[in-house]
Structure formats: structure tokens, C-alpha cells
């Protein structure tokens, strides 16, 4: 395909129209890539008949940064920070999918305390991601105050991340075999205070939004996609659960001790935008429950595997133990070698199944890292969810699909 105008023209011409009789002239317009309601750098080629969307084609790749290629050039433990930067709202999940895949290849056991600490951070991250989604989505619906409330609570989560890892975003807290260091004194109490407050705040969001006339008008019975279509498109996560399918990998195929916790999976009924909102909103409460249970049952013991071939030795050993010094030197310079093979490690991210495929050729660098990012797959549901609806509903539906373009383009 040649560059320039002809290429775009070709894309426009490739749009297929539904077979309905058209009463008005069709108009193809370009929405994005810099459009506030696209939640990132997403471009939509929308074909309109009057105000009705007849077809829509997402064009992506504007923030493609070649993270998967970069990861192939780094030792496994140095690839974690780059992998984290894919979906910038769920960095703990990216790290978890990658570390889990490498642990599978290495056959390393993660100590129970590390598994619980991972769960606490993953669920805090899920709350944070849903808060950003709720705030930005409500801006799209015309309500700016919700954004301030959501970001107030998000700041509280980021403060907790900063306290446990020193970073607010892209923390690199998870590492192969466990977590990078134990939680600081006083952190548990802060998290407990946060979950208690978060439930109250979520109640307040519900009071503000659940029966709000504008929210109901904009969200109810819009953007409906039935369960079978979503399954055919590979859509998972809250979008699938909004149709009533309780598919959640935390329950279906528990990882990192999720089987120890008692929590419910919120589901919707018809799969419209309102169900999507309610499912995510209800998930905030469930995440709070999981965090509280994990804090109650937090086991004592090491926070990272004692396998010195994989995890760095503690600092104090370096002064006295030659072995520790050698291991430290080998890990920092070359990294650990991973047995050859290929694995796929799926986890439940805030947006659905986040799978990490890692192929090792036996060296200390991955031969291939591929993320099955849920946003990338879920974006295919845009067309069936918005076809034959008003363009205003397109904005609301896109907000409720919750794509994160950093994850789409990687």
C-alpha cells in the first residue's frame, strides 16, 4: 500500500455497510487520534448517516513503542520494568503475567507471603484502574465532579504504592520469585484504613450515579452486545461479565493463592453500558474484601524465593559470604538463565484476560515476549457495540469499553 492520501482513501473504501436502505447521504469522518473521548491515542474512522453510526473502524498503533522487541534485548529481570509500561493503568498485572510466565519456565516456587503481598497489590491496582476508568468515563458523560472524587482516592492508592515500593507508577515491585522487598512498618494499617474509606467512597459514587437521570439516559440500553458475539470476539473481563457470564480467571483458574479468598464475581444481565458500569463499580467492593482477607491472613516468612540463582541475596550477606557475592555478581551482570521452552501465563487484569507468552532459548534473555493484552482484543467489540446507534452513544460506549491505548499498541 502506498503512503499518503491514497492509503487513507483505501481504508475508507474498505468499510462495509450494513444492508439497510439508506435514507440520507453517508459521511465518513475521522475521530481522533487526539480526541478527548478516545481515552488515549485512538483513531476511529466513523461512517455516519445523519447522526447514526453505520460503521466504525478503529485505527491503532499511534503509541506503539516496540516494548516486546525491547524486552528481547534485556535480561529477564531487566525486562520487568519495560513490560510494566505496556498497560499504564495496570502495571502490577503486566509484571505479574510476565513474572508468572518466567517462574513457570524456571519452576520456581513463590513463598506464601510473597503471593499474598502480590494479591494485595494487584487488588489495590485493580481499584486504582477502575477509579481512573470511572473518572474519565464520567467526564465523557459530562460530569466532571466524579473525576475529582475518583482521583482523590486514586492518589491514596498511589501513596500506598509509593510507601511499599518507592514509586507511584511502574513500581517494579514484583520480581521473579516474589517481591522486591517486604512491606514497611505501618503499611498494613494504612491499607486497612484505605479499604474502609474506599467502601464509603464507593457508596457515595453509587449515590451520585446509580439513579442519576443523565447516567441512566446515557447508559441504559446503549452499546448492547450479546454474550455469544463477545465470546466469538475473544472479549473477557467486565465486558463479558456484564452479559451475565461469570468468567473470571481468579475463580476459574486461581493463581497466586486466589483460592484462599472468599469473594464474589459481580455480573450484569443484558450487557449494556449501565451493566458495565455496575459490574466495575461492584468489583471495587470485592477487591476491598480480598485485600482485607489477605491482610488478615498474611503469612510470615520470606518475601522472595530463597533460590539464590534467581533472587538477589540479602545485602548483609555480601559482606561475609563469598557465595552471595558471586551470585550477586552473576545476577546483576548476566542475569539468570532460563531453561528452553515456551509458556503462556494468563491472569485476570482489570480489563480481562492478560496473558503473557514467553519463549526461552536457554539464554539469559527472552527469545520472545508477547502480551495478549485485553484492551487490544476488546477493542474489536467497538464496531458491534456502536453500529446503528447515535454518535453520542459511541462516546459513552467507548468510555465503558475502557480500552487503554498503552496496552493496545504496546
Amino acid at each position, binding site marked *: *500500500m*502506498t*503512503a499518503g492520501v491514497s*492509503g487513507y482513501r483505501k*481504508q475508507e473504501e*474498505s468499510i462495509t455497510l450494513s444492508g439497510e436502505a439508506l435514507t440520507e447521504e453517508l459521511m465518513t469522518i475521522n475521530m481522533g487520534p487526539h480526541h478527548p473521548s478516545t481515552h488515549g491515542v485512538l483513531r476511529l474512522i466513523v461512517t455516519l448517516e445523519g447522526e447514526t453510526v453505520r460503521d466504525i473502524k478503529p485505527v*491503532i*498503533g499511534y503509541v*506503539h513503542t*516496540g516494548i*516486546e*522487541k*525491547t524486552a*528481547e*534485548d534485556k535480561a529477564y529481570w531487566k525486562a520487568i520494568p519495560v513490560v510494566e509500561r505496556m498497560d499504564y493503568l495496570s502495571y502490577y498485572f503486566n509484571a505479574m503475567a510476565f513474572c508468572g510466565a518466567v517462574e*513457570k*519456565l524456571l*519452576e520456581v516456587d513463590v513463598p506464601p507471603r510473597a503471593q499474598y503481598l502480590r494479591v494485595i497489590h494487584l487488588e489495590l491496582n485493580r481499584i486504582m484502574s477502575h477509579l481512573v476508568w470511572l473518572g474519565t468515563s464520567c467526564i465523557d458523560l459530562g460530569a466532571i465532579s466524579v473525576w475529582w472524587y475518583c482521583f482523590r482516592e486514586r492518589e491514596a492508592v498511589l501513596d500506598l504504592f509509593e510507601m511499599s515500593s518507592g514509586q507511584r507508577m511502574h513500581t517494579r515491585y514484583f520480581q521473579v520469585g516474589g517481591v522486591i522487598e517486604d512491606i514497611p512498618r505501618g503499611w498494613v494499617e494504612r491499607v486497612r484504613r484505605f479499604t474502609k474509606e474506599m467502601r464509603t467512597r464507593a457508596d457515595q459514587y453509587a449515590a451520585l450515579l446509580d439513579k442519576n437521570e443523565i447516567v441512566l439516559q446515557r447508559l441504559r440500553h446503549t452499546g448492547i452486545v450479546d454474550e455469544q458475539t463477545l*465470546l*466469538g*470476539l*475473544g*472479549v*473477557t473481563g467486565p465486558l463479558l461479565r456484564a452479559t451475565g457470564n461469570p*468468567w473470571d480467571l481468579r475463580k*476459574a*483458574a486461581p493463581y497466586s493463592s486466589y483460592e484462599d479468598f472468599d469473594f464474589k464475581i459481580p455480573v450484569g444481565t443484558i450487557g449494556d453500558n449501565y451493566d458495565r458500569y455496575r459490574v466495575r463499580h461492584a468489583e471495587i467492593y470485592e477487591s476491598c474484601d480480598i485485600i482485607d482477607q489477605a491482610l488478615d491472613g498474611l503469612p510470615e516468612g520470606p518475601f522472595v524465593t530463597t533460590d539464590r540463582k534467581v533472587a538477589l541475596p540479602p545485602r548483609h550477606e555480601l559482606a561475609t559470604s563469598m557465595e552471595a557475592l558471586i551470585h550477586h555478581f552473576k545476577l546483576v551482570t548476566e542475569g539468570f538463565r532460563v531453561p528452553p*521452552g*515456551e*509458556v*503462556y501465563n*494468563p491472569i485476570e487484569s482489570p480489563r480481562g*484476560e492478560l*496473558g503473557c*507468552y514467553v*519463549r526461552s532459548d536457554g539464554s539469559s534473555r527472552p*527469545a*520472545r515476549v*508477547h502480551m*495478549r493484552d485485553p484492551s*487490544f*482484543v476488546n*477493542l*474489536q467489540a467497538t464496531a458491534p457495540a456502536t453500529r446503528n446507534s447515535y454518535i453520542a452513544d459511541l462516546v459513552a460506549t467507548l468510555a465503558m469499553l475502557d480500552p487503554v491505548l498503552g496496552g493496545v*499498541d*504496546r
Partner: protein
Amino acid sequence: MPDATGLELLAQDLRAADPDAVLGTSYFREEATIEVAPAALRRAAETLRAKGYAFMASCHGVDYYPEEPRLGVHYQLLDMPSVDRICLKARVTIEDPHVPSLCDLWPGANHPEREVYDMFGVVFDGHPDLRRILMPEDYEGHPQRRDFPIGGEPVLFTYNEDKVPGWTR
């Protein structure tokens, strides 16, 4: 995951339909993989889909350089009711990188297959809209191949915008 025996039984079913279909099976870290001939990929996918692996979770491309055949396409299939995963894999050469598209079985294969085409140059026959998806449409080469170097692409600045190949005002 099907256990090692279950995997062999599935492979046996695929062989019964087409004796040359299955090139190998592997059971590694409790993950089952069936490698099929590229020509038999569609039929194998249909068989597995009828057996309950009705959800296509993911599609990966991979470059096995320096092994031959170099390019690989993996489909991660999922049986939701019994929480069972299987990987269906086909490998093709650089010279003849053709595999049948599975878009009509799973419409959700559309974007992932385009990504594999974009990054590795695998051509999916029968794909409704096989264009580049992440890289610019006038991009040359397939950047995820192992012989494509990191930094193989000049970064565009104001001072070198006239000299970078492919750049026209």
C-alpha cells in the same frame, strides 16, 4: 490443561481425520501443545472447537531463528466450562509464510492475526482485512523477526528529516 494422555487422545482424533495433520505434541510445564501442518490448521481448529475448545484466547507470532521452519503461529484455545487450555501451533518458512486464517471461526482472530502479519510477515489466507495494524502502513520489513535489529530504524529529527529514507515532504 488436558493431561499428557488427554493430549495424545486429542492428537489421535486429529490424525484420524487427516493422517498427516499432526506433526508433534508436547507437554511442557503442564501446558499441552499440538503442532499441526499449516495446511491442516483450519481443520484441526474446527475439530478442537467442536470438542469444546470454543474460545480463542490468544494468537501469538514467534520467530524460531535460527531453527527452521522459522516462523510460528500459536493459537491458545480455551474450553471455558472445564477450564482447559490447549495450544495449536503451526510453523511456516520465511519463503512460504502462508497459513489459513481462522477469522471466520473466531471473529476475534482478526486483530491478533493482523498483528502477527505486521510483526512477522505471516500471511493469513482468507483474512478479511489483512493490513498492518501497529506499524505505519508504508513501513518496510517485519520488526519482530529476530534478524531485524533493534535500532534498525533511523529516528526522525528535524535535522535529518531530509535524509531519512522513505521520507518525503
